[in-house]
């Protein structure tokens, strides 16, 4: 994951990549010899020496907080892979510190840059589905399909487990498409093959708007070739089913408008713009380009994926953990709309990441 971010960044014509830090000697050797990148093992020394405009953090989750904190102290904008932190408290601390320093933290929830999901958001905002009454958000994939060697992904204290990984994407997608989550109930975190962490997450989510729905996430399902995230939303004018490839919308006679009632299918080809450099999917490039734009424009632009919403994802993760262990309680909530309405907030942000060329 880190490597593909590196390739995408390096291909950005406005970015000068001044260095990369990794603990793997093999990686440092390979990249150091065969590319023009300066490789380091000490990120702190690299940042203080190079004084970059921004830093990309794609490390195991438990390292997010200390590294991001250091970057902010050095006055550097941050792109932080998801999830932000291992607990809500740290995420809020980062968010507040970034705000205080006038710096941007953007999170790596790439579904917000997928054409099909962006289209679903438009459908909902335009009221085409009418009043909503239910949703089901799901993700399946083949990450852990048998008992195997332990890595950091099998240790919750390091950010392992399906909840921090797959489920965080799905929760963030619900926030993006529908609303912030208010409370959760009936949560089950199930181990299928892993010993230390859960491989599946099931829960009922109640949103601030009062809408309720279900979350079903399972990363031990090898019937899927790769991660597959989907959402079904039911309204009184119709229904929408969407994943990364397609959007299927059914409009009933109240929702049809000038068209006939029934299904209408559209595909990623209808909703996806070409990017300047393609590696694993348009959305990965789009989020990196957007980050560079956000940083270099010094604000003014609404951040699609700021830590404000990403920290809320961490709050929901905490609610799910509490609910599954029977210690549920409503965490302190944040009025996101008020935060975002605080105009001028982004305007103080200065230039980018890894110095702009030219």
């Amino acid at each position, binding site marked *: 994951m880190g490597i593909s971010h*590196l390739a995408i960044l390096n291909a950005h014509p406005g970015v000068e990549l001044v260095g990369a830090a990794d603990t793997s000697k093999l990686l440092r050797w390979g990249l150091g010899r*065969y590319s023009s990148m300066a490789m380091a093992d000490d990120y702190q020394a690299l940042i203080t020496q190079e004084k970059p405009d921004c830093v990309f953090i794609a490390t195991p989750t438990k390292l997010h907080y200390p590294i991001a904190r250091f970057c902010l102290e050095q006055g550097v904008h941050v792109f932080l892979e998801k999830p932000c932190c291992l607990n809500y408290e740290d995420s809020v601390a980062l968010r507040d510190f970034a705000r205080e320093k006038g710096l941007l933290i953007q999170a790596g929830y790439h579904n917000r840059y997928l054409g099909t999901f962006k289209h679903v958001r438009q459908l909902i905002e335009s009221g085409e589905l009418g009043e909503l009454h239910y949703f089901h958000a799901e993700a399946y994939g083949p990450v852990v399909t048998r008992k195997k060697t332990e890595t950091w992904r099998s240790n919750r204290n390091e950010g392992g487990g399906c909840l921090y990984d797959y489920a965080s994407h799905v929760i963030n997608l619900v926030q993006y498409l529908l609303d912030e989550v208010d409370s959760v109930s009936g949560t089950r975190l199930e181990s299928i093959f892993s010993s230390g962490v859960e491989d599946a997450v099931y829960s009922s989510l109640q949103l601030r708007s009062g809408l309720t729905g279900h979350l079903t996430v399972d990363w031990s399902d090898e019937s899927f070739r790769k991660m597959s995230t989907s959402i079904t939303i039911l309204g009184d004018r119709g229904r929408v089913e969407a994943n990364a490839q397609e959007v299927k919308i059914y409009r009933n006679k109240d929702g049809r408008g000038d068209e006939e009632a029934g299904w209408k299918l559209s595909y990623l080809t209808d909703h996806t713009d*070409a990017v300047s450099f*393609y590696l694993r999917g348009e959305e990965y490039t789009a989020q990196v380009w957007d980050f560079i734009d956000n940083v270099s424009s010094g604000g003014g632009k609404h951040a699609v994926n700021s830590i404000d919403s990403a920290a809320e994802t961490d709050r929901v993760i905490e609610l799910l953990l509490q609910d599954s262990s029977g210690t549920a309680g409503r965490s302190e909530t944040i009025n996101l709309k008020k935060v975002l309405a605080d105009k001028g907030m982004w305007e103080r942000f200065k230039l980018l990441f890894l110095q702009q060329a030219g």
Partner: protein
Amino acid sequence: MDRIIFGDNQFFGVDHLSDDRARQKEQRFKDTGEIIRVLDMAYDAGIRTFMCTTYARIGEICEHIRQNQQKYAGFKIYPCMPYAHKYANAVTEMGIAGALSHFTGQEGLVNTIARGSKAVVKRDAIELMQILVDTEMSMFHGVETGVIFLQNVITDLLLGLGMHEFFGEFAKYVGEKYNSEAGFITMNLPLLTETLLAQGMEKPIVCASINKIGFRMSGTVAENEAILASGNVRGVAMQVLAAGALGPDEAMEYVSKLPGVESVLFGASSRGHIEHSAELIRHYSNDVATLSDVG
């Protein structure tokens, strides 16, 4: 290269638009015999080149072709390597060093590098690349190859990271060892072509997404068309149907008439679709030939 190249995505259960269709295909092509039946349909339709990823079952198909050489006279296979999932899974399981040791059998060398020994000379990563190529090529012995392609995820990763030296080394090695030309699959046709030319390659073979609506064509459509028209690259058009967004007629007309496209790659799994697509490509390619004869 032949004007028409038959692809293999349909055999993998890949469908860019529909998971349901992908599942149906996956179920059908679990049987290698079923893949061979479709290849026979392509052969009957006059197609003589099959481009395929180096996944394990291709070994069975190569074996079938070796045993029926008369039946498959003139039939070539263009391997595309590596089969990325195999390596991605191994890296997740064993780490980068573990996976490299596993596939190259060079644990000592990999460990030396991993320890960061200063004694390591620059040739070593190139040698590891050569060993990996040999591993992937082992199943193709006795089968005519001609062009050996580097898969797009690897090509584009090396391109993005700026590790351009590997492109030339790969081309040199497949030329010397396998008497084949190197091809590069990419989602970034203009940038890759410029990079390969800057590396001193002449008229590199580049396979990229090329279609009328610009789907997965990085940069602008005009940039892609211009680099093809420059005559500096031998284009292989893939994703010509734009993942099903285009009808076959308009799709094939666009790529068949596009200057700089030497070959058109498509995959299909029924006799009707194979014959129809091949006919369309020949029909529109002839239009172009006639025009240039006149001109």
